[in-house]
C-alpha cells in the first residue's frame, strides 16, 4: 500500500474523528453551567394536549433535544384536564425540577401555577399558551405566517381573483390567528370572494367536514379555491372534492402536515395544492432549547417564533417525498430551525 498524501489525510481525519468521539465529555465542559453536568438537570414537560400526530411529534422533538443535552426529562400529561395540569406544575415543583415547559392549556388555570413555579426559582417556558408572565418566554409557531404562506401560494397559482370556500371554526386560538390573515387577504385582494364559510370539529373531523363541503360544493359550483387552514379540514374538503368529481377544477390550500397528508397531496390529480407547516418536532426542540438558554442564564427573548415552511404538491412529487421523515431529510428548512441555537447548544438533527 502506497502511503501518499491522500491516505495520510484520511488517516488524520479518522484520528481527529476518533479523538472528537473519545473526548466528547470533555467537549461538554464547554457548555455553560448547569449543562456541564447535564445528568443533574431535571426538566418537566407539562402537557394539556397529547393525542394526535402533532403532539406525538412535538413530544419526539422535546425528547430528542433533551437527549442531545443529556438532561433528565419528565413528562406529565394532563390529557385535557385543566385543573390537573395546574396540579402537575405543583407536582413538578415538588419533584425538584430545574425547568418546566408548559405545553398548551388555559390561561386562567395555568397563570397562577406558572407564577408559583417562577416563585420557586424554576425556569419556565410556555408553548402555545399565554400565561401572562413577563418572566416566561412564549414559544410560538407563527399561525399568521402559516396562513400567509399558503395564501400567497394560492394567489401565485390562481391569480388575484377567485371564488373561495373557507373552512373555519371560531374560538380556537390558532385558527383565530390564521383567520386574521385570511380577513386581511380578502381586504387586500378585492377579487377574492368568499362564497361560503363552513367548518366543524365534530369527530372524526375529516368525515364531518367532508359532509359539509359536499353541501357547499353543490350550493356553490363556481368555487375555485378552498382555503382550509388546518389539515383535518383539508382532508375533509379533499374527500368531498373527489366525491364530487371536481379534483381538477378546485385547488385546496391548507396548513399543517402529516404523513397521511403527504399521501393525500401526492395522489394523481389531487386537488390539495399546497400546505404551510411548522415541523412539530422542531417546535419541541426549540421549546427545550429556549428553556436550556434560560437555565444557562441567557435570554431567548420574550417570544420565540418557529418559522413555517411552504410545502407544495410539486415539491413532494419531484423530490419523491412519501412521509414526514423523508420530508425532513429532503427539505432541510423543515428539519431544523435556527432558533434558540447558541454555539454551545447540541443540534439533535446533526447526523
Amino acid at each position, binding site marked *: 500500500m502506497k502511503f501518499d498524501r491522500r491516505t495520510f489525510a484520511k488517516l488524520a481525519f479518522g484520528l481527529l474523528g476518533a479523538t472528537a468521539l473519545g473526548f466528547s465529555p470533555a467537549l461538554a465542559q464547554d457548555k455553560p453551567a448547569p449543562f456541564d453536568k447535564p445528568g443533574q438537570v431535571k426538566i418537566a414537560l407539562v402537557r394539556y394536549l397529547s393525542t394526535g400526530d402533532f403532539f*406525538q411529534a412535538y413530544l419526539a422533538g422535546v425528547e430528542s433535544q433533551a437527549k442531545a443535552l443529556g438532561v433528565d426529562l419528565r413528562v406529565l400529561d394532563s390529557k385535557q384536564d385543566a385543573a390537573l395540569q395546574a396540579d402537575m406544575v405543583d407536582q413538578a415543583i415538588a419533584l425538584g425540577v430545574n425547568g418546566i415547559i408548559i405545553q398548551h392549556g388555559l390561561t386562567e388555570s395555568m397563570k397562577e401555577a406558572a407564577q408559583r413555579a417562577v416563585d420557586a426559582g424554576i425556569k419556565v417556558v410556555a408553548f402555545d399558551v399565554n400565561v401572562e408572565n413577563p418572566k416566561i418566554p412564549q414559544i410560538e409557531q407563527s399561525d399568521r405566517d402559516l396562513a400567509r404562506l399558503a395564501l400567497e401560494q394560492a394567489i401565485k397559482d390562481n391569480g388575484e381573483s377567485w371564488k373561495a370556500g373557507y373552512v373555519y371554526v371560531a374560538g380556537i386560538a390558532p385558527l383565530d390567528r390564521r383567520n386574521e390573515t385570511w380577513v386581511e387577504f380578502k381586504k387586500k385582494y378585492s377579487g377574492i370572494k368568499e362564497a361560503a364559510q363552513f367548518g366543524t370539529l365534530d369527530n*372524526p373531523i375529516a368525515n364531518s367536514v367532508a359532509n359539509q363541503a359536499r353541501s357547499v360544493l353543490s350550493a356553490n359550483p363556481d368555487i375555485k379555491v378552498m382555503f382550509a387552514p388546518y389539515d383535518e379540514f383539508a382532508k375533509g374538503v379533499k374527500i368531498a372534492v373527489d366525491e364530487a368529481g371536481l379534483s381538477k377544477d378546485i385547488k385546496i390550500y391548507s396548513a399543517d402536515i402529516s404523513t397521511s397528508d403527504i399521501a393525500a397531496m401526492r395522489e394523481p390529480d389531487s386537488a390539495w395544492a399546497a400546505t404551510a407547516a411548522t415541523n412539530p418536532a422542531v417546535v419541541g426542540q426549540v421549546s427545550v432549547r429556549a428553556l436550556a438558554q434560560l437555565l444557562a442564564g441567557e435570554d431567548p427573548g420574550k417570544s420565540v417564533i418557529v418559522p413555517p415552511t411552504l410545502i407544495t404538491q410539486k415539491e413532494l412529487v419531484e423530490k419523491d417525498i412519501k412521509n414526514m421523515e423523508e420530508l425532513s431529510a429532503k427539505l432541510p428548512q423543515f428539519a431544523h430551525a435556527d432558533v434558540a441555537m447558541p454555539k454551545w447548544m447540541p443540534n439533535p438533527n446533526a447526523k
Partner: protein
Amino acid sequence: MRDIAVRYGFLVLFAALVAYFASTADGFVSPQSAVFIFQSVAITGILALGVTATLVVGGFDLSIGSVATSAMMAAAYVMVVLDQNALVAVLVCLAIGVLIGLINGFLIVYMRVPDLLATLGMMFLLLGLQRIPTEGRSIAAGMTMPDGSVAPGKFSAAFLALGRHRFDFFAPNLVPVSVVVLVVLAVAIWFFLEYTRFGRMMYAVGSNERAAELAGAPVKAYKIWAYVISGIFASIGGILLAARLGRGDIASGNNLLLDAVAAALIGFAVLGASKPNAFGTAVGALFVGVLLQGLTMMNAPYYTQDFVKGAVLVVALVFTFALSTRAKR
C-alpha cells in the same frame, strides 16, 4: 285527531322541512343531493340501526362510536402495517365487532353490570386500545412505526372502493357503496325485528323481561345477540369510515355515538311507534341528514346545526312521551 297527529306528525314535519329547503336552498332538489344526504347519514345510520337492536331488548350500547373507530384503526392496521388484503381487513373488523358484542353481552347478562355502565367502560377501553398498537399515531400508508421502520402496506384498492365506488342508478356513478350497505342493512334489520320470531321475541324481552323468561324464552341469549348485532353494525360503520377516509384516524367516535343515538330516539316518534323500531331509526337518521345538508347549503355555522339537531330531538321525544297515548301504559 290526536292519534293522527301522533302517527303522522313527524312525517309531516319531515316533508315540510324538505319542501322548505327545496324552495330556499339552490340545488337542494337533485338526485345528487338526495344521494348525498343518504351518504352523509350512512355511517351514523348504520350505527343507529345497531343501537336500535339493543334498545329493543331494553338495553343500550354506548360503545358503538368507539367500536366504529376501533374497527377503522384495525382495518388500517391490518392493511398498512401487516400488509394484508381487503378481505382480511374486513373480516378482522367484523370479528372485532362480534367479539366486543359478546363481551358487552357477557358483562351485562352474566356479570350483572348495568348496560350503560358496561358499555361506557367498553367505550373507554376501546379508546385506549385503538391507540396501543401504534403508540397513539394515526395510521396512513408510508407512516413511520414507533421502532423507526416504515409501514410496508397500503390501503388496498378493493377496500377503498367500499368508500368510493359508485353504482350506476338513474345517472351514471350515482349511488355510493355506503348507501347501498345502509339500505340493505336497514331493510334486513327491519324485517328481522318486525317479522321474524327471533325479532319479536327480542321485543318481548324488552317490554317485560320477567314475563318473557317465564314464558320460556332464553332471555340471556337474546340480550347477548342484541349486543352482537350492535357490535357488528358498528364495525361495518367503521369499515365504511376507513374506506372513505383512506387512513386510520385517531378519533373518539363520540359524535358518531351521539348522532346515532339521536337518530334512534327520533325514530321512536315516527308513525307513533313509541318504541325503538328500525324504520323510525332510518327516518330519524335521514331527518338529521336533511337538516344538516340544508343548513350547510344555506351557510349556517356548525353551532346552529347542533342547536337544531337538539331541538328536533326534544320535539321528537315530546311526540313520543307526552302526546302518544300508548306511552302511558
